[in-house]
């Protein structure tokens, strides 16, 4: 049971229309609280904020083209031990997909959760966003150019800026499996925003908020155009990656600057361990061990185990990697983690015909096996 409705946009102010919508959700008690990106007073950053008081929505901006964290991790914190109140969470596609993976990993639940997806127009690295914030039409919001582009199925970064690598090659700009999706692609956002809603919650919202049913006829075409462009970019990026990382030495060249800070794991929505095994006693070696290694080969690289960490982390989570690229954003050594995880992830996931975050029914590839797969092992 799905329903489509439109939110009226007054004077072309999309952000205002969204704030109004969110406010009404709280006021109509559709949700008890909302997790939504809110601009900092400084205007150069946006952080996810859990809001109960509708008045605190004044600076909310779900359109801000920046992603400080993958919010799936925040939803995990909110819901892992149960969720007494009904919370609405505004998520981009990669956040929603990561959330599904975490649900399957029993790190989050969807109980009492209202998921509000929002078409993602792409995001900048936080530093770039801080620089850019002033240039945008709408304070720290998205530019009107970008919204117009979205209507045509084409989003380009502001001149002189680049979207994050993950966004450049993201072929899932629309969140799936959400209760409500805030549609921008193929929508004339000068006058309206498209709301696509599923299930009872959709009915409830339409009724309580008195929304008008409506549609955006050009949406499908716009999305297809966007996605095919992204796919092209993705394939080119993969080709570049394989060109760069094609054997042991080139791999080492790319990764030997890893400083074992484990920020990537911290930023990764899928890396859900309380404590990474590389920070436990298993890898906190007794001091004589380092000397032993140095003794054996005459020298031992410090910090140790960096590539082992990268490959092991990849082995742990690559089947669930949603390609949000937060690892790379977090990396102080600028390792090309996004491409590495996307390039590897696509192939590994293909083995199991598994798309992370696509469905709760599909079992995690690491949690199961089939009797009759991989017959090449004899």
């Amino acid at each position, binding site marked *: 049971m799905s329903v489509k409705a439109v939110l009226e946009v007054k004077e072309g102010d999309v952000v205002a229309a969204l704030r109004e919508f969110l406010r009404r959700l709280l006021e109509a008690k559709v949700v008890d609280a909302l997790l939504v990106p809110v601009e900092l007073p400084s205007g150069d950053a946006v952080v996810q904020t859990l809001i109960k008081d509708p008045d605190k929505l004044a600076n909310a901006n779900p359109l801000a083209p920046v992603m400080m964290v993958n919010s799936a991790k925040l939803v995990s914190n909110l819901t892992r031990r149960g969720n007494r109140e009904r919370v609405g969470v505004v998520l981009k596609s990669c956040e929603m997909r990561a959330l599904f993976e975490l649900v399957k990993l029993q790190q989050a639940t969807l109980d009492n959760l209202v998921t509000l997806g929002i078409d993602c127009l792409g995001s900048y690295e936080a530093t770039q966003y801080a620089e850019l914030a002033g240039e945008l039409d709408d304070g720290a919001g998205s530019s009107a150019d970008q919204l117009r582009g979205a209507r045509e199925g084409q989003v380009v970064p502001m001149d002189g800026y680049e979207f994050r690598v993950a966004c450049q090659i993201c072929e899932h700009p629309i969140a799936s499996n959400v209760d409500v999706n805030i549609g921008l692609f193929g929508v004339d956002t000068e006058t309206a925003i498209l709301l696509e809603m599923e299930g009872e919650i959709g009915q409830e919202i339409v009724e309580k908020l008195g929304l008008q049913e409506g549609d955006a006829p050009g949406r499908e075409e716009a999305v297809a155009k966007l996605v095919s462009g992204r796919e092209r970019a993705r394939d080119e990026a993969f080709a570049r990656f*394989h060109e760069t*990382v*094609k*054997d*042991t*030495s*080139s*791999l*080492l060249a790319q990764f030997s600057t890893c400083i074992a800070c484990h920020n990537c794991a911290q930023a990764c929505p899928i890396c859900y361990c309380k404590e990474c095994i590389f920070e436990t006693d298993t890898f906190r070696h007794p001091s004589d061990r380092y000397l032993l290694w140095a003794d054996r*080969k*005459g*020298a031992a*690289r410090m910090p140790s185990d960096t*590539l*082992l960490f990268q*490959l*092991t982390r*990849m*082995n742990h989570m*690559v*089947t669930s990697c949603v390609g949000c690229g937060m690892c790379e954003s977090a990396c102080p050594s600028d390792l090309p983690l996004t491409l*590495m995880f996307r*390039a*590897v992830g696509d*192939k*590994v996931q293909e*083995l199991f015909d598994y798309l992370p975050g696509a469905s709760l029914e599909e079992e995690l*590839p*690491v949690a199961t*096996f*089939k*009797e009759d*797969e*991989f017959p090449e*092992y*004899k």
Partner: protein
Amino acid sequence: MDEFEPRIVAFLCNWCAYTGADLAGTSRIQYPPNVRSIRVMCTGGVDPIYVIKALLEGADGVLIGGCHPGDCHYQSGNLKARRRMAILRSILEQLGLDPDRVWLRWISASEGKLFADTITEMVQTLKEKGPNPMGEAWAI
């Protein structure tokens, strides 16, 4: 040493492959001395981290030997291992590392000859491949 001698680490399950290796011994079937066997209870207990570590440490090949499908003494540990090795090999391949240095083979307790043949074949294959570049590169 004139000829390159590959260094192989083998993870052998207690019930089938290790017993098969024992049988090669009791049958006095000769095979190259390039392999260092590590006994595990089940291939399902072989953490890919061991394989990665072995490769990073410069092992020229890693063999995981388990019971034939259906014969696992823990029902399906070998099938779990198969999936994990498939994932790992795919990762290696995408990263430009040679996945064919990692072998997963089914060797039953009665297949002493197969064990010996597997080692012989592996040594031969690895000789053709040459040394694991990681051995040199990563050791500085």
